[in-house]
């Protein structure tokens, strides 16, 4: 028992060490992310002191880019399962060793989500009011209480799965099925639930007709399953470029087919939504009118949404054409879909729900500089976390860090990394 605990502590200590070791590119990248994160933290400190008045939000538009980014990132986190499903349900070999990168991305995305929700709170010091037993969690009536539960649960699930698989690989033993397969399947269902619950957060508000539409839930899933795997496709290529971890083109192309189908569904659902809002011509369509064409001379979001739609359409065309089997075109399509969906899910979903207000006033929303810095800081912090996770997990998966080489000279970071061929599957 004591030996097991000691071994685990050594594992943690070696993981922590490797996080601070790398070549100059690693230090430059991490340094840049740290600087941006700190700028964000500083901006948040100002917000904490002066209140949310330092953001562009108001009583009229009471949620802004914080909640917009939160919504987008919940989708990214949920989409990690799109790699798990082929592996564990369809036994796809190519993706098998890559699942963990998806799950680590989910962990990083959830950390960002929680950060975005926290910075949006007026009284973050009262977070403990949410803890059941100590506080007063309004479960199951409030959809936000559901969100608190599913997000934290999803974080724990993924931390457990990743941590367990990595530690097994570190000890070079086969993972016990009962210790992770049930969790993997729970995580698959859970992933759908986090995004559905987040959609219901909006859908449940009868006073906001723009959100109060049953199509919002399916659209959330479709867009998440487009943007999430698109991010993973890019991340895998970056990993492949900087390490010698074996990632095949075939694996990337498997993900491509997921992005392809989801994007087609996403665009189809968009068409459904636009038709309903505009053809019927009811007064409930005003928010959509504000978003797509502007209202009474106010049209701050119009260029954004048309950029998003253009990007999504171009991405869809590239994805359905055979050219997207070439990685260069696939990357273009991925970047376009990520940006397109980020706009559409963020600014395009959250902000127009508030314009006009339920009493018909139009107050536009523009994120303030301080608010933007906080957002950039959280994104940088999330990337920092993901880079750290990769920095720890890749050498473990490659066998460079293992229980068997404990005590031997550690990786220094800038030695030339010889291709490691023997990263054997368990």
């Amino acid at each position, binding site marked *: 028992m004591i030996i097991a605990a000691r071994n685990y502590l050594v594992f943690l200590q070696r993981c922590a060490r490797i996080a601070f070791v790398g070549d100059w590119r690693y230090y*430059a990248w991490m*340094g840049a992310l740290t600087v941006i994160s700190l700028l964000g933290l*500083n901006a948040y400190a100002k917000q904490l002191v002066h209140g949310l008045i330092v953001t562009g*939000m108001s009583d009229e538009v009471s949620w802004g880019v914080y909640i917009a980014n939160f919504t987008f990132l919940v989708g990214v986190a949920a989409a990690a399962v799109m790699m798990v499903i082929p592996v564990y349900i369809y036994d796809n070999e190519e993706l098998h060793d890559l699942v963990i990168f998806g799950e680590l991305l989910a962990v990083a995305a959830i950390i960002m989500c929680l950060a975005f929700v926290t910075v949006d709170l007026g009284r973050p010091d009262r977070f403990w009011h949410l803890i059941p037993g100590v506080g007063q969690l309004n479960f199951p009536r409030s959809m936000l209480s559901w969100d608190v539960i599913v997000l934290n649960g999803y974080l724990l699930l993924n931390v457990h799965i990743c941590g367990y698989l990595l530690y097994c690989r570190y000890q070079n033993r086969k993972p016990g099925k009962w210790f992770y397969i049930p969790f993997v399947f729970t995580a698959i269902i859970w992933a759908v639930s986090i995004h559905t619950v987040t959609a219901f957060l909006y859908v449940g508000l009868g006073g906001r007709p723009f959100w109060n539409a049953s199509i919002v839930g399916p659209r959330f899933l479709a867009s998440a399953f487009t943007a999430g795997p698109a991010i993973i496709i890019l991340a895998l290529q970056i990993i492949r470029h900087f390490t010698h971890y074996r990632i095949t083109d075939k694996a990337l192309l498997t993900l491509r087919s997921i992005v392809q189908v989801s994007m087609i569904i996403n665009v189809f659902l968009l068409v459904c939504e636009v038709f309903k809002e505009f053809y019927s011509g009811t007064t409930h369509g005003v928010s959509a009118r504000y978003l797509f064409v502007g209202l009474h001379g106010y049209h701050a979001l119009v260029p954004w949404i048309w950029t998003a739609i253009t990007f999504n359409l171009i991405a869809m065309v590239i994805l359905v054409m055979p050219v997207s089997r070439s990685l260069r075109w696939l990357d273009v399509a991925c970047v376009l879909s990520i940006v397109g969906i980020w706009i559409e899910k963020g600014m395009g979903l959250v902000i127009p729900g508030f314009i006009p207000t339920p009493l018909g006033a*139009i107050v536009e929303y523009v994120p303030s500089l301080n608010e933007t810095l906080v957002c950039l800081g959280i994104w940088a912090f999330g990337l920092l976390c993901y880079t750290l996770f990769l920095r720890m997990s890749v050498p473990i998966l490659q066998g460079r860090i293992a229980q068997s080489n404990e005590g031997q000279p550690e990786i220094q970071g800038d030695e030339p990394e010889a291709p490691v061929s023997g990263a054997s599957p368990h």
Partner: protein
Amino acid sequence: MLNRNASTNAWLAVLTVVFLGLGAFFLVSAGGRPVPRQVIPLVDPKFLSTAPWRQTYADLVRTNQDLSDYDCYGCHEKNKPPPIRYDLNHKIIIPKEHSDIVMGHGAHDRNNLCYNCHNEQNLLTLQVRDGREVGFDNIPQLCGSCHGPNLRDWEAGAHGRTSGYWDRNLGAMQRLSCANCHNPHAPRIPTREPAPGPHSLHGPVGSPPPVETTP
């Protein structure tokens, strides 16, 4: 190898400098209010006043104020109802002694006979059309003789201003009389200046363009 080593070291040194510089920047920029406040003048206390617009005869009596306006027989002769003159359009001609009176009771200037309300036999009282005499301190009875539904609503507390206690067990409800709000000679409530409009947190509130209304 050496090259890589040196550039890693150089980057670490640069990072240290950048971090320290960033720290210094944070310390320098820490103070001050990041968002300048708009200027919003405090609202004029006249808009907070709950006082009635007008004072009735009863109010004047209660507060011992000058009642000379009600001393009709200071000028008029007793038992001699003042004559009422009309112009060619059947509009009442208001004598210059009463130039402060604007006749605007009822549509189309039809209610233009002073003795619809004033008692021609005794100018110190008012009269209902059925002949009942009513004092200046009991005007609801007079007004209600024509405006029945309004009197009914007023008696139920549904018409006119109230203040004080909704819970009669805890305190009294104060009522106002018709003439506290309505000028008996021109009872339509006059227009007035509105209190200032709202200020949004970051700037003006947008509204739809003015709607053309059909008369």
